[in-house]
């Protein structure tokens, strides 16, 4: 007992009688039990009872309201596989799956599931970036429509491989006995393993023909190169070597040949260094992604490209009697002078598929001396090798019954070639290796269900001497078999697994060791092996003069149709991935659709507006599509994208089914090659009750002269690095206390508007990393796309010429437009309508628009307007400068979204997961495998936005902490920055003075968007410098 005796009152001290007696009870006054238990009604429910009842009632209601959460079982490993630690991702080098090229990538794998592609930074030649389609193609692995096993036509139930092989072998034996040929259709020839398997197959069936088929043809280049220097190749183009780039309709940043690598190379010279940057001329019909980045973009009719090439050839001193044709403003002359000055640092590329055009381009490049510098014919490109003449010849032979069997390896000619179906049906046995039921496999007699590239081994050769090794990152999801193994099996080979390794592994390893050589495991680790030869300059057999003669008679047409690929969906082959569709087109910002793009003057002349449906007629067919008025497009040209209008069977649950129209039948093949420029087209307005509404993410075209994008010319920049960024603003006083970031990290981002091309790879990368839901066309129509990161595209008009100014001066003696002023559409229109009745000149401005791309995501403002208005503190500021979003706390008032000056907050209007109305990957068990387990899948009714990939920040911090060290400089980066092929986005810690971001923050070109608001964003942009006068 304590020696201190406390007493609580005088009564206790005195121990009065009353105190002693009352203290014996717990309650000094006693409980009113008698009253409660008496029959007196007035006291039946007293105050205490009321509280009891109330408390009980509340408790009961609360319990009743607590629904039982659904039970989901997670099965732990009974034996943990080596290296697999739940929660720790593994990374494997492999090859991209979105095309047949074989682009090196890293696959991020969590608990045995590949969840994301990341660029392979070791593969420096390829630039360390990835595109939107490349990212979105991961979903083809988890496509719920994937075939479950080998199938025979008519039966929708998979067979066993033994039975299937037996049938195929019988069929092939029958073909041999009938004396007919077997055709193998391949998608190019850069897979060493497939090539080996084909040769094994041929050894058994020597009457086999191999025909390469690619939906997009580059035969013009192949044929021209054969004629020019005897090599049937597409060379490697090195845009990083070029100081002056002149492109005639080649969308090399978007869709032409190998755009991801071109992006990286191109961007290396786009940021001014020591007063210099590359100069890019683009002559084109449609407004392409490449054109939107050009320093000088000149609208040109693609059907006139030959005439323009002749003009350039002459200007460069080429000997030809032909005059050619100059574009408005003598731009070809200027470009020729610059090319001449650049010498072997000049590069001319051309998107035409006409052999003669390409011959002249070759001659021009030869004159410049670009072979050996900008163009490498030794370590050439192997991603595209097909010539459609071979395939067309095959179709003719097939129709006349030459073939008893066709084996179609992962191509879909029945979609992309209008004549293929009839010819294929003339072949009795049609075997196809496919992942899903597409147009070709539906028509096949035998479907040898393939393995997904991520389940399979392969060695690809995208460039001569550069080998990319693909390795499986998941066990086969279904009963597929690699097409190489299938070929070997049909040739009588043994494809059983041996010594716990699959046939595909052994076969690939053998092939690698035989052809490439070296340590296979080492190659697997890095993902790329390079055995290069020294570049040599080819000797030319043909002169430019002859080429010019061949084109000279080709004249431009009145109206032309350009068939092109969209940056998102490309040729349509791997387009069954909703991310690629939801990614807005970098220029038109349309999602989920193709359309006929037309120029403003044509729209006015034919009384068309965006959304009007028109019927377009060419020699080969008609197509009915809505129109989209596209600024920058050349007058009298129309554009339609490929990759849409799939004809898929009913049982395929696919988002592609009702998307757009198929433009492949319109490709003109009458001249012996696929011509994507079609002359003599007619446009007819179709009367529809309503205009077609596009799912378009940006509906206002003009920047309204606002100081959002800052830009300057190279000359201005060289004079003063801060030019373009001078905006007179009063010194402002902040009402807020500044945050103290002196301790720990301070995260920030810098975006260089000079490097950013608008390719939109970051959008898809961000969506996949952060489980951003896909909402579909209808919701995009309602302006509810969920992208955390968007790329704002703004058009601006060139400042009016002196002539235009004098026009304005005439009007009322007042100069209404000042030279050099940023023009808005309204201002130009006003100036013109004030000056004259001639609105045609105003429409000319629409052909000559300038474009700027600006990635926009949460700016992580220090004085964030969203943070102050949330009533429940669901969005708060971190000590490291992040604007955090607490989903669990969010009640969805949307006030933050309204108060965000950048409008980057996205609201979950519906539950986008497990909802049959949003039947994308979030709503089926297979598709859900792609979800990043590090990021919450948001529920309905909460706000979300860019988090600066906070899960990556946290993971890296934890690794550093576990390893008892400080975080390394630029140890990690965000998903957008990581994937950017042009390195335009840089993320890092401002408190680390060594970091790239800290250096960029000191750059003279840096500015913040809307900085006058005083919100102090953590994202900094860098003034766009255009290399022009």
């Amino acid at each position: 007992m304590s020696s201190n005796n406390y007493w609580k009152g005088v009564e206790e001290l005195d121990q009065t009688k009353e105190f002693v007696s009352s203290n014996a009870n717990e309650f000094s006054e006693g409980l009113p039990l008698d009253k409660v238990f008496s029959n007196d009604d007035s006291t039946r429910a007293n105050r205490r009872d009321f509280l009891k009842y109330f408390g009980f009632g509340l408790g009961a209601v609360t319990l009743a309201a607590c629904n039982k959460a659904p039970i989901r079982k997670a099965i732990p490993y009974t034996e943990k596989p080596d290296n697999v630690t739940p929660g720790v991702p593994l990374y494997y080098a492999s090859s991209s799956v979105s095309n047949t090229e074989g682009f090196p990538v890293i696959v991020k794998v969590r608990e045995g599931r590949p969840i994301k592609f990341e660029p392979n930074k070791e593969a420096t030649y390829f630039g360390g970036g990835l595109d939107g389609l490349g990212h979105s193609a991961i979903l083809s692995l988890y496509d719920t429509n994937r075939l479950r096993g080998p199938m025979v036509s008519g039966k929708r139930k998979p067979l066993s491989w033994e039975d299937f092989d037996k049938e195929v072998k019988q069929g092939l034996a029958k073909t041999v006995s009938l004396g007919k040929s077997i055709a193998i259709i391949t998608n190019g020839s850069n897979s060493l393993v497939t090539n080996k398997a084909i040769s094994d197959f041929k050894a058994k069936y020597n009457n086999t023909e191999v025909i390469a088929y690619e939906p997009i043809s580059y035969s013009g280049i192949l044929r021209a190169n054969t004629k020019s220097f005897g090599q049937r190749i597409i060379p490697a183009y090195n845009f990083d070597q070029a100081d002056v780039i002149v492109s005639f309709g080649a969308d090399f940043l978007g869709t032409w040949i190998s755009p991801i690598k071109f992006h990286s190379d191109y961007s290396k010279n786009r940021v001014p260094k020591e007063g210099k940057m590359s100069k890019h001329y683009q002559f084109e019909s449609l407004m392409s992604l490449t054109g939107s980045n050009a320093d000088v973009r000149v609208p040109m009719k693609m059907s006139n490209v030959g005439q323009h090439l002749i003009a350039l050839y002459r200007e460069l001193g080429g000997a030809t009697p032909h005059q050619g044709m100059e574009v408005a403003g003598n731009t070809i002359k200027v470009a020729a002078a610059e090319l001449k000055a650049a010498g072997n640092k000049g590069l001319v590329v051309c998107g035409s598929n006409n052999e003669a055009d390409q011959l002249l381009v070759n001659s021009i490049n030869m004159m410049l001396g670009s072979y050996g510098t900008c163009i490498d014919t030794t370590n050439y490109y192997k991603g595209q090798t097909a010539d459609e003449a071979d395939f067309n010849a095959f179709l003719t032979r097939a129709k006349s019954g030459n073939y008893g069997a066709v084996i179609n390896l992962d191509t879909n000619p029945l979609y992309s070639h209008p004549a293929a179906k009839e010819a294929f049906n003339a072949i009795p046995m049609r075997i196809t290796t496919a992942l899903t039921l597409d147009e070709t496999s539906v028509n096949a007699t035998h479907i040898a269900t393939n393995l997904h590239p991520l389940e399979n081994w392969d060695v690809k050769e995208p460039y001569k001497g550069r080998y990319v090794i693909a390795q499986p990152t998941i066990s086969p999801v279904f009963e597929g078999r690699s097409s190489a193994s299938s070929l070997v099996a049909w040739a009588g080979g043994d494809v059983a697994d041996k010594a716990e390794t699959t046939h595909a592994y052994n076969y690939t390893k053998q092939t690698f060791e035989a052809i490439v050589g070296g340590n296979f495991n080492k190659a697997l680790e890095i993902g790329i092996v390079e055995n290069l030869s020294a570049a040599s300059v080819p000797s030319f057999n043909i002169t430019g003069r002859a080429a010019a003669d061949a084109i000279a008679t080709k004249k431009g047409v009145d109206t032309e149709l350009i068939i092109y690929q969209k940056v998102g969906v490309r040729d349509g082959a791997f387009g069954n991935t909703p991310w690629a569709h939801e990614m807005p087109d970098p220029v038109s910002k349309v999602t989920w659709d193709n359309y006929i793009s037309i120029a403003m003057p044509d729209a006015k002349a034919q009384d068309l507006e965006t959304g009007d449906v028109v019927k377009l007629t060419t020699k080969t067919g008609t197509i009915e599509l809505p129109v989209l008025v596209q600024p920058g497009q050349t007058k009298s040209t129309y554009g339609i994208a490929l990759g849409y209008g799939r004809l898929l069977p009913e049982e395929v649950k696919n988002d592609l089914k009702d998307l757009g129209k198929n433009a492949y039948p319109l490709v003109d093949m009458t001249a012996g090659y696929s011509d994507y420029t079609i002359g003599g087209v007619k446009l007819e307005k179709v009367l529809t009750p309503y205009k077609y509404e596009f799912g378009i993410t940006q509906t206002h075209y003009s920047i309204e002269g606002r100081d959002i994008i800052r830009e300057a010319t190279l000359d201005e920049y060289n004079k003063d690095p801060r030019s373009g960024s001078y905006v007179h603003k009063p010194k402002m006083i902040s009402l807020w206390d500044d945050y103290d970031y002196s301790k720990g990290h301070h995260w920030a981002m810098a975006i260089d508007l000079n490097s950013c091309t608008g390719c939109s790879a970051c959008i898809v990368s961000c969506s996949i990393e952060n489980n951003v839901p896909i909402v579909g066309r209808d919701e995009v129509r309602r302006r509810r796309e969920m992208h955390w990161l968007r790329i704002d595209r703004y058009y601006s008009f060139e400042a009016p010429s002196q002539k235009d100014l004098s026009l304005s001066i005439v009007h009322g003696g007042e100069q209404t437009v000042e030279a050099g002023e940023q023009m808005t559409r309204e201002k130009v229109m006003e100036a013109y309508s004030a000056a004259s009745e001639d609105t045609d000149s105003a429409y000319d401005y629409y052909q000559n628009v300038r474009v700027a791309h600006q990635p926009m995501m949460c700016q992580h403002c220090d004085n964030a307007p969203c943070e102050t208005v949330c009533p429940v503190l669901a969005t708060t500021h971190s000590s490291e400068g992040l604007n955090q979003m607490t989903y669990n706390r969010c009640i969805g008032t949307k006030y933050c979204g309204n108060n965000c000056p950048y409008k980057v907050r996205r609201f979950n209007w519906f539950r986008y997961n497990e909802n049959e109305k949003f039947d994308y990957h979030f709503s089926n068990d297979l598709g859900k495998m792609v979800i990043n387990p590090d990021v919450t899948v948001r529920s309905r009714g909460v706000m979300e936005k860019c988090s600066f990939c906070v899960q990556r920040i946290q993971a890296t911090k934890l690794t550093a902490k576990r390893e008892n060290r400080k975080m390394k400089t630029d140890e990690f980066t965000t998903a957008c920055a990581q994937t950017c092929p042009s390195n335009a986005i840089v993320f890092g810690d401002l408190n680390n003075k060594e970091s790239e971001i800290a250096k960029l923050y000191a750059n003279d070109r840096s500015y913040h968007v809307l900085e006058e608001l005083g919100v102090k964003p953590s994202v900094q942009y860098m003034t766009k410098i255009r290399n022009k006068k």
Partner: protein
Amino acid sequence: MYSADIRQPLVTGGKTYSDVTADVCRPIENKPTSSWWLGFITGVVLLMVLVVTLAWTVWEGIGTWNTNKSVMWGWDITNFVFWVGIGHAGTLISAILLLFRQKWRMSINRSAEAMTIFAVFCAAIFPLFHMGRVWLGFWPLPLPNAFGSLWVNFNSPLLWDVFAISTYLSVSLVFWYLGLIPDIATVRDRATSKARKFWYGFFAMGWNGSAKSWGRYEVVALILAGISTPLVLSVHTIVSMDFATSVIPGWHTTIFPPYFVAGAIFSGFGMVLTLLLIARYVMNYQDYITKEHLEAMTKVILLTGSIVGVAYITEFVIAAYSGYEYEQYAFANRMFGPYAWAYWTMMFCNLLAPQVFWSKWARTTPWFIFVISIVVNIGMWFERFVIIVTSLHRDFLPSSWVMYHATWVEVGIFLGTFGLFFTCFFLFAKFLPVINMAEVKTIIKDKE
């Protein structure tokens, strides 16, 4: 007793005390009329529309509305501000006019207060159901919780709204109920059935009409009037701060508090007039709600409408003068942009239309006043629509500029709140004395 030779009598028709009691109690004590049934059933049908559309919203998500990535508030908050505004007249009439000893308020204050309360009910639906997760709607209340240091954000104007509106609603309710007690006691005393006796007796809280009771009653009424008066000004001031404290051009203006309060009184009187003119006609209360009343109220409309009009013009001039391009654009866009029709509707209804009340004829012709009161209601709805939607649909970055059109769900919810409002109002008219008998009796001359 209230009389002055220079004033028109406030109650006409030579009513005696017993006439007043009989007239006011008649609807309560008799079977409802067919016009009452018509109104009540219409109200209930619309109320069902509210139930269905709200259920659909909660079941499917706010996605059933058409609000989007830029315009995240649309009809919902427009309707909220509209109803809160309407809810201003009642307290103004009962509190401020009581303090100013405006005796003409006596025959209208009861129904005006009832209208206030029902309007606030309607208003409260919107901030609640516009939440993405309405089932967590209690989170903005500063409740102690088991989530650690989780607390509400006192910086947020939405939180101020929660306090302002709940305070306003509770004070208005108490004030209204207090005023009802003597009248309920009258109904109780006249009741013939046991149930009526019980229920009216229950709510009369043992009122015995003694001088002591009256004395306390008047003191409490005055105190409540004193408490309510600042609330009339504060509620809409705080609602306006939802916009004024933001950074969005068109919202971020310091003129909002006074302008919103004037607008609220304007719209509240518009609604009071609409309702009273109906009640006056349906219930034959021409002697109690005289042209004198109508004239007084139209004068308030004329005054507040003009204040609002001046505010519109001031806002515009300030924007032009500011040299701030975003602000300038926001106002140019209101006038000439895609929503110009809404702006000009608002300008016509709120600025021009009430100016007819300079004419004595207009102020004393009931059908005409009715038309204008509807115009004012429409105009004030559009005012909120213009402020909210045109500011959001084109703010800073043109890349995010969008259009917004309501879906049937949003329209249904708005119509449905009228259902709730009229259902409540008709029930009120059936079961409670619509005119304050006790007070009206003080302003008539009864020879007895």
